[in-house]
């Protein structure tokens, strides 16, 4: 790996790196999750909010602090030092081992999602600096097939964990996913074991892994790498769980309590370390990376 030497020299100069200023405004485009129009109805508090106001506020509702879903690219802008991200494994694309077809074939569905999202898969990964600290970074994008984990997501997460071991740098994963990707059947299920084993190796090597849970994180992603962080952070009001609320409601045949599976619910039940506002996330990561160097 050619990048090895540079990265090690960076390690030494970590604290002296300049802190890059970023444009802290996220433009909503057709890929964004916020609906079209000048005014937007908040999913959480149902208030009508001026779109510009949300954009200025990092896509966070100014009325209730609901954090709208943002694309992986937008997330990258918010988290890493400008120009420091090197994308890796960006050319991996899914096969179709089951020859799966619902209303259209899986191959067509992939193509459709690639066009819609501008991404090849539900995750981008690579090396980056966070306030000068080198990290392996993985960011999921919910707009690509609901951020579902198939072979490519499993492979990219595993590779990122292995790279963290090789380069002796922390791993940071930003999760947002509906769970395993049904269209890849047993292959997607087995990715859960694969990524968990990779995280296991990371831990054995004493390398820090910070998991960040965003709205929503469910199923096979929660039940594998997302809940295995040494430190687990959630964005405010994010819906996080194993089974989806509708499935639970149908099973127990009673309404779910207020705030069920929201970030604060997980915090109260001792399942995550902290809930951090989007605007403070980069600072929090930098602090942790600095402390646990």
């Amino acid at each position: 790996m050619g990048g090895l030497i540079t990265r090690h020299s960076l390690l030494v100069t970590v604290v002296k790196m300049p802190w890059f200023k970023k444009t802290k405004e996220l433009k909503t485009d057709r890929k964004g999750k916020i609906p079209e129009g000048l005014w937007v109805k908040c999913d959480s508090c149902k208030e009508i909010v001026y779109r510009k106001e949300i954009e200025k506020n990092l896509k966070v509702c100014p009325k209730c602090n609901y954090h709208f879903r943002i694309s992986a690219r937008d997330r990258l802008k918010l988290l890493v030092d400008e120009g420091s991200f090197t994308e890796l494994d960006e050319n991996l694309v899914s096969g179709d081992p089951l020859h799966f077809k619902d209303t259209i074939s899986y191959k067509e569905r992939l193509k459709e999602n690639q066009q819609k999202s501008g991404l090849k898969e539900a995750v981008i990964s690579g090396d980056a600096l966070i306030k000068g600290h080198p990290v392996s970074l993985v960011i999921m994008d919910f707009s690509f097939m609901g951020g579902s984990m198939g072979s490519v997501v499993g492979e990219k997460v595993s590779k990122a964990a292995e790279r963290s071991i090789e380069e002796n740098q922390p791993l940071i994963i930003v999760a947002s996913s509906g769970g395993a990707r049904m269209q890849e059947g047993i292959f997607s299920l087995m990715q859960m074991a694969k990524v968990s084993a990779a995280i296991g190796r990371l831990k054995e090597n004493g390398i820090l892994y910070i998991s960040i849970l965003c709205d929503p994180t469910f199923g096979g992603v929660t039940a594998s790498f997302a809940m295995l962080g040494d430190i687990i952070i959630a964005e405010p009001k994010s819906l996080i769980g194993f089974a989806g609320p509708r499935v639970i409601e149908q099973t127990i045949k009673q309404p779910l309590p207020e705030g069920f599976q929201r970030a604060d619910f997980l915090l109260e039940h001792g399942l995550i370390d902290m809930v951090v506002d989007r605007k403070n996330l980069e600072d929090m990561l930098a602090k942790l990376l600095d402390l646990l160097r």
Partner: protein
Amino acid sequence: MIRYYLEFEKPIEELELKIEELKRISDGKDINLSGEVKKLEKKVKELRSEIFSTLTPWQKILVARHPDRPYTLDYINMITTDFIELHGDRRFADDHSIVGGFARIKDMPVMILGQQKGRGTRERISRNFGQLHPEGYRKALRLMKLAEKFKKPVITFIDTPGAYPGIGAEERGQAEAIAVNLMEMSRLKTPIISIVIGEGGSGGALGLSVADRLYMLEHAVYSVISPEGCAAILWKRNGDIGTEDFSRAAYALKLTAQDLLRFKIIDDIIPEPLGGAHRAPEVTAEKLTEYIVKAIEELSAKTPAKLVEERYKRFRKIGNFEEEG
């Protein structure tokens, strides 16, 4: 004996009823119908063999969920001696949907555990239909760690519709419990052998099957989602989905033992007696013993470090993707 016949077994049921009728008529009377009975018995066998060699994926699911199918404890009773059941996760509760403990198989000490479904309404409920809560996964991990400590191989039986979706399960970290099992099993320094004996329901099944050897009974299934769940997501039109959709989903998901062997996800298929495991539980149990003993012998020859290394590679290579130029 009252037998439970599946829908597609109806022609078999009719013939078997006829045989019983003939036997009853000839019983204690002069008329000898044994020739006729023999002819019919041969016909039943042929019919059964034909039906069971061409089961559709959905039919396999029905066989895997057959109420008479042997469950974990049935096999434990048949294949082990000195079974000592252990209880609880030492944190919250003893989850009755999973049983486990030390035992001997052909004199070899092992840790054996698995999901347990119930028979009859009361036991079904107390076993929670084989759906584990987080404490079930934590109990399993505790037992597996004990096995590691005392250098005994771990045998797990998989038979669950999935991990339980409920309020308490979420409050106590269902996802975390499964995730930790996946990670810890991948590093356990003792052999792990897993066998899907019935239903392998998604993450709830995987949480007990990160193993060095993974086998499936001939009519068992293992899937990322149930066909019902899959059909509901894909084809729910105003809520009316039925057997036809489930059948289609079961086919699309490629969840049979035969599919998984073709995908090289499992190591082998353990044959079932004609008509399914429940037709001759002892025969099935004998086959299970054979596979387990062979696997233990092979795996015990490896050092713990080699075992863990090979287990890592085994899962690491699973995936279907390509690199675009």
